């Protein structure tokens, strides 16, 4: 196992490269989820404001 992580002495270069790969793609997957929540929240807010405007004569 230790030999696997050492990668023939190149572990210090290989694992950071793979770490960047995973971290960047994780951000790529999470970003639209967060934005989706924000956008839906904004749509509901606009709808609420419009409804209260229409309710008051």
């Amino acid at each position: 196992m230790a030999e696997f992580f050492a990668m023939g002495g190149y572990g210090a270069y290989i694992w950071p490269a793979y770490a960047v790969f995973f971290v960047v793609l994780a951000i790529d997957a999470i970003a639209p989820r967060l934005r989706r929540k924000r956008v839906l929240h904004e749509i509901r807010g606009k709808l609420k404001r419009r409804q209260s405007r229409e309710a008051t004569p």
Partner: protein
Amino acid sequence: MNPLVLWFHKIGSPPTFYRIAGVLAPWCFAIAIAVGAFALYGGLVLAPRDYQQGDAYRIIFIHVPCAWMGLFAYAFMAVNAFIALVWRIKLSEILAMASAPIGAAFTFITLVSGSLWGKPMWGTWWTWDARLTSELVLLFLYLGVIGLYHAIEDRRQAARAASFLALIGIVNIPIVHFSVNWWNTLHQAQTVRLMGPSKISGDMLWPLLTMALATHVWFFASLFARTRVGLLELEGGKDWARDVALAEATRERTVTQHG
């Protein structure tokens, strides 16, 4: 209208595409992760050591698929940008703008992993050779498209301006691709070729191609997720988007009450 055009119009309408993309996105994410894990097992465990580069070459299994995706995402963005500018199809505007951050992500990984590969093999993190420089220009083009899209208030005008920039940037694509043939510098020449035999052993090639498949599926997963949000944002005032927003609020309430 002929049935194919009719079908195309139906798929291209925002609420329909929103629904279809919602079904496809989770499947694409799951398939990409499963195929990617399989490819990594092949690349990091099963594939033999390289006779020249030792284990350092194993960075290839992320570096090359990500580099391919950087170009693929750009081509996808440019085609949709062209459709958006000529036919003014809303869905194409959103698709073009959704592929920019994914392409930027893959290009960024390519540059960083390439740098981490260059240090032990070439003795330097960076050199201003044609391949590295044009790849950096590719990243800046992506960032330029994203920046321009967010700098303009009107969403549709912003998409058209950014689409125009994306089309101009196409000149860089052949430079990235052919740079290793045109200028002989530190970056090694193409290993995998569509035409003619690849210069790589089979037990290294299959994890590489499997990883390429995984990153392509990932691209579409992320694209669908991003396009859905883009469509909601653009059509926020329409009934279907409101229905989605209200249904989501009800779902969240039930989760907090029962969960």
